[in-house]
């Protein structure tokens, strides 16, 4: 778990021990849940525990994704945040104010000023034009007509719908309708955006386009977004942090990489095995420290010794500031030693394959395939941050987490592949070189 110390300055939404139970005497059900009654046992007595003891914090300016299958309670959770549902127990702070104790009127003010929402099936008003839909939040606030229209137009332009103001939602395609939904939320000017499976009803290409647009907008606007999805790829793509939810409980909170590489339990592990890891993991997340580095001033003998000691066929050469100069190869070094050269300058390969730490594995795949030596991961100033051998890359792509094979099936999930779960953990092995590829364990 990676919940940071809770602090109101950076946490815009903060839930502590949140419960939502539907049914008779919900408070008694909460007590039973606290004492260890399971969700299924509770269901037998006619109560449905939608959210159980959820604690999380959404930081100002981040995209926080709640990921779970249907019935995991994620939709209920998001509806607690804007008061569409009342929590049964626990506290929920929005910008420091506890939503749970507010009167309907105060709650409406919070919805008008702080939290807006984008819906799965768009929930546009069919009898209002695109502009009137986008202006709805401001209309409810009784903003003045000119301001309403100006800000709605601005929001529509932001999502690329200028020129469509006078159309009716029924005349628009699905993707465009959801952009109206997004514009409606943006126009109301709230800092928090709740997005309830906002892109799930769209076909995959449009969905991807919308995700790009959302990330683009987020870079410009820096809103705080609570995004709900059942699509793990979407969660990994969008989320600065992700909360994995199952059967009403949050089972893990972390970055995409933390969840992929260090799943908290079997459930998460099973889940992430279907993720397109190539598009989620970055070079920086899988790179390793080079076993040995050669200073650019060193001679062939030093290089030869280092190679022998570490059983390496090549070395990365760096300058005083650890900036990458190039690579030297075993054969060249041996030749130089034989000829008693005392300078490496001539034999340094100065154009080794380099990648940036932020690149995804998909982006570095072809570089890795073409390079005879591990890829060098460098930062903007050319400093060597780490290396990625082919085996590391392949391992990362095929890796399914670090947990043991589950002994029982995980319900709610289809097709757990036992053999792929059994693969041992994160890319390891101190010795990393191109030759060691053959020994790569795996199911790749």
């Amino acid at each position, binding site marked *: 778990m990676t919940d940071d110390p809770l602090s109101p300055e950076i946490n815009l939404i903060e839930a502590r021990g949140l419960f939502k139970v539907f049914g008779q005497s919900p408070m008694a059900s909460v007590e039973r849940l606290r004492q260890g009654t399971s969700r299924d046992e509770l269901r037998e007595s006619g109560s449905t525990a939608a959210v159980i003891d959820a604690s999380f914090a959404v930081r100002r300016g981040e995209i926080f994704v709640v990921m779970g299958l249907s019935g995991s309670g994620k939709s209920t959770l998001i509806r607690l945040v804007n008061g569409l549902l009342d929590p049964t127990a626990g506290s929920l702070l929005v910008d420091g104010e506890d939503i749970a104790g507010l009167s309907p009127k105060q709650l409406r003010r919070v919805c008008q000023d702080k939290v807006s929402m984008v819906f799965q099936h768009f929930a546009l008003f*069919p*009898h209002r034009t695109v502009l009137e839909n986008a202006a709805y939040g401001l209309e409810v606030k009784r903003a003045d007509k000119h301001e309403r229209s100006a800000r709605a137009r601005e929001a529509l332009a932001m999502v690329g719908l200028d020129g469509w103001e006078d159309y*009716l939602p029924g005349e628009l395609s699905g993707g465009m309708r959801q952009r109206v939904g997004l514009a409606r939320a943006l126009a109301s000017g709230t800092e928090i955006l709740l997005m309830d499976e906002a892109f799930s009803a769209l076909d995959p290409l449009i969905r991807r386009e919308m995700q790009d647009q959302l990330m683009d907008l987020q870079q410009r606007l820096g809103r705080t977004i609570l995004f709900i999805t059942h699509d793990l790829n979407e969660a990994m793509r969008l989320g600065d942090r992700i909360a994995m939810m199952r059967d009403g409980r949050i089972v893990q909170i972390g970055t995409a990489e933390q969840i992929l590489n260090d799943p908290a339990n079997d459930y998460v592990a099973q889940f992430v095995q279907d993720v397109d890891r190539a598009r989620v993991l970055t070079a920086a997340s899988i790179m390793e420290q080079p076993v040995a580095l050669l200073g650019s001033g060193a001679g062939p003998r030093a290089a030869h010794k280092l190679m022998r000691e570490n059983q390496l066929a090549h070395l990365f050469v760096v300058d005083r500031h650890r900036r990458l100069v190039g690579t030297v190869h075993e054969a060249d070094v041996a030749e130089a030693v034989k000829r008693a050269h005392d300078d490496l300058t001539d034999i340094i390969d100065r154009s080794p394959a380099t990648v940036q730490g932020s690149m995804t594995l998909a982006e570095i795949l072809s570089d890795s395939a073409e390079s005879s030596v591990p890829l060098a991961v460098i930062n903007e100033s050319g400093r060597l941050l780490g290396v990625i051998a082919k085996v590391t890359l392949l391992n990362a792509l095929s890796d399914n987490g670090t947990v043991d094979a589950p002994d029982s099936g995980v319900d709610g999930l289809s097709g757990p592949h036992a053999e792929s779960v059994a693969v041992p953990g994160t890319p390891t092995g101190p010795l990393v070189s191109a030759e060691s590829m053959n020994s790569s364990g795996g199911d790749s």
Partner: protein
Amino acid sequence: MGPLDALPRLQVGDAFTSVVEWIEGNLPWLLDTIKTVLKWAVNQLDTGLTYIPVLVTILALAAIGWYLRSWAFGVYTLGGFVLIANMDMWDESMSSLALVIVASVCAMGIAVPLGVAGARSHNVSRIIRPLMDMMQTMPAFVYLIPTLFFFSIGVVSGVVATVVFAIPPGVRLTELGLRQVDGEMLEAGQAFGASPWQVLSRIQIPLALPTIMAGVNQVIMLSLSMVVIAGMVGAGGLGGVVYEGVTRLNLSKGFEGGLAVVILAIYLDRLTGALADRAPVARALRVRSAAE
């Protein structure tokens, strides 16, 4: 001697009578107010409609029909109402029209709030439903008895009986329309901080308008069908004509009166239908079906 004979005779009818008598004895101010207001409204409208020259009224009605629906409907209106005038039924038709309009407005005025209450609360709905069933299936003549007690012979009794008879479809269709509004629409309103009134007035009612208008249409049709029965209690108008035709076995007069009712009915039915089609949400639905 069957076992049911052990049950003492329940005085259901007498109980109802005492309720009616209690109202008559204890709420005279209410009855008087209703009587005054309704009488005034019908008379004003009736006088207004007959005061305007016949041709002007006919042309105005035809123009409305043309504008709201089609030129063909305008032509129908013109022909129909000229026929009414030609049959010497003009004044009677206008007083029936006045009665129908007042009764329909009153019925919708009562039905919409009841429908809203029913849509908001299942408990209210459970109470309203059997009441509506009773009002709709009780033979219409039965309403005449208590209304005669309250308001005696005249147009007010006719209006009140008509209102009671016409309310049920208004309530039912209002409730149905509001309940049919997609729950996500209401959530969207609430999520942006709309008050219950804002949700009702700006989202629910506009979206339910086609169904509510169907209710208005039904209310008007039922009101028209009560016109003849209202004629029996002295409400005058076309009802009076038809009733006279029946009692005196005057076939031609009875038929002409009935024909005038039909012409009025078709006019009002098509007109309210056209109004429903002009609701923004109906336009939105057409747009969608055209796009898909």
